[in-house]
């Protein structure tokens, strides 16, 4: 990342100012159907819009492998990109399709579709999307947590008990999306902070490790604001239950915790042919350096 002092007014920052409007206002202004609010794990429209505008150009293809109510798809259409979404939840799939219809009625013309991902086969993702292998410019998705901590604990896979189930399923989705990404394409993943038994989980670290196995290179780590920026202050918007939890946490532990005002955003990139050439060159240089150090030690 470059020096902050050298930035131009249009240079993007690692902090995305995407919380100037609250979530419900974003849905209303975006023309979403009212049932969209049912999807509590949705990516806020402003965050999706920012990622799409920064990492794609008009006419690009955006994919959300777990699209929920379809906020990523709608923002892609509104920005002049094509969009494909997948979800195994029948109710959310219906809402997502309604949102696409509303977007088309509002005047967007790019193509968009929502597919059913509810199959048992691990390679099902490739079947309906065979025609877009290597053509997806951007994947935008998020980790969807289970609804109770008991479910989270019980749902951890046996071979990786320390990795939350939401990260495991997200990593699987990224691995299945990998063949669809064009060389040099990006995958933007938003992560909502998550606690278990009072401990904050390192979801970004687990995700980066898992994405490594999918041949995705982490390139940036940013922050998407949920709160509104007022000059040099940020106003949070937390629910009553979140405030109750924060109060109970502080009374129990004596340790204050902070109200949620951001999501972590991890950006991955599919290696391109130039990356592979650079990796080969770098490995050659490292090998030559190690050999020269060995000769120096033997000479002493």
């Amino acid at each position, binding site marked *: 990342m470059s020096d902050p002092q050298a930035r131009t007014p249009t240079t993007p920052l690692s902090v995305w100012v995407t919380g100037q409007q609250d979530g419900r206002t974003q849905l209303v202004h975006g023309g979403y159907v009212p049932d969209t609010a049912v999807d509590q794990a949705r990516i806020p429209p402003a965050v999706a819009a920012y990622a799409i505008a920064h990492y794609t150009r008009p006419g690009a293809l955006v994919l959300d492998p777990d699209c929920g109510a379809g906020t990523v798809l709608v923002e892609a259409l509104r920005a002049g990109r094509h969009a494909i979404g997948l979800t195994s939840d029948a109710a959310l799939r219906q809402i997502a399709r309604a949102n696409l219809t509303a977007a088309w009625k509002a005047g967007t013309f790019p193509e968009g579709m929502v597919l059913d991902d509810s199959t048992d086969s691990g390679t099902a993702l490739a079947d309906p999307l065979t025609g877009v292998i290597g053509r997806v410019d951007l994947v935008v998705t998020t980790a969807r947590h289970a609804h109770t901590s008991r479910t989270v604990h019980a749902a951890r896979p046996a071979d990786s008990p320390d990795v939350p189930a939401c990260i495991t399923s997200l990593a699987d989705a990224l691995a299945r999306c990998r063949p669809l990404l064009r060389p040099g394409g990006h995958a933007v993943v938003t992560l909502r902070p998550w606690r278990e038994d009072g401990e904050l989980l390192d979801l970004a670290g687990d995700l980066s490790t898992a994405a490594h196995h999918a041949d995705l290179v982490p390139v940036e780590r940013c922050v998407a604001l949920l709160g509104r920026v007022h000059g040099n202050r940020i106003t949070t918007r937390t629910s009553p239950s979140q405030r109750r939890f924060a109060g109970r946490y502080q009374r129990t532990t004596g340790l204050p915790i*902070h109200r949620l005002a951001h999501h972590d955003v991890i950006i991955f990139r599919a290696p391109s042919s130039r990356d592979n050439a650079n990796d080969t060159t770098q490995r050659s240089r490292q090998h030559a350096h190690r050999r020269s150090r060995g000769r120096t030690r033997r000479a002493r």
Partner: protein
Amino acid sequence: MTPTPANDSSDAPNGAASSSINPPSQTDEKRPRRRRRRRGRQAKHWATVWCCHTDELPDGLGLLAGWLFQAIVRITTRYTRAGDRVLLLAPPSPPGPDGPRGGSHHDPFTGLVEAAWTLTQLGRSVHTWNGDRPENRESDRTSPPEQSKSGPRPDRPAAAVVPDQPRAPADAEPNPDRFDLIITTVLAETVDQVQDTAWADLLMPSGVLAVITHGDCFAGRLRDPSTALVSTMRSHFLYLRDHVIVTEVPLIAAITSQVDESDSHSGPPSESVPVAPVRAHSDLYVFTPSQPSIPPRNEEEPFHV
């Protein structure tokens, strides 16, 4: 200038006495009395994003960046009270291109210990550790120790002793010289040194360890020390309790640039590689020894943070 912590609640204005000198007149009795909310100290609500950019710094600071100074003050006021012991632990300098102590390397966390005097003014008992470990001092043994703002540097803390097995602070030998708060910084290339510190001997069982760090991009790949940091701390029986974003630049410029760009949806100027974002924030990770578990209640959201 004495810094003021952020989110200060407004005190009741001076002179707003509840009792009046003159007895109420009949006219006053006829007017309906409006209940006024008592303006006492309100609960302070802190967000997971701190805007720490500032152009005003106390006198006497040299290398310490303004945003880092603000962050240190906020951490101290947030997690300690007057009389608590605070340690500012500056890590060893990262190696330069010419060797361990040569070359130039831009360390954004330089000058951490310069905040000691300000924290002392806030009523904390401040200690500092600024320097390299003996194994890094190859040729500088005759140079005098660096002096901190709060006075002569104390004896080297037990941090230099590398334990065979990390212990939890509660299992360490009782030591009144341990600290209620430790503030330190970590770079991506020096995160391994966290493992070599005996945190149990430094931190009180109820203490807080605040680590400021950030990721950076090197050769087109993200170097994020947070994963190794969290994992290492867990091996020392210190658990991640909070993650705060500390912004280093004013965000108002970002708002303006985003408004300008949103109209065109033009995307990145180059089709192959979008413009890399400028790093505008650092990460504050808060660790504490094991705490009681807090399972969520049924009526609460699952995304409690």
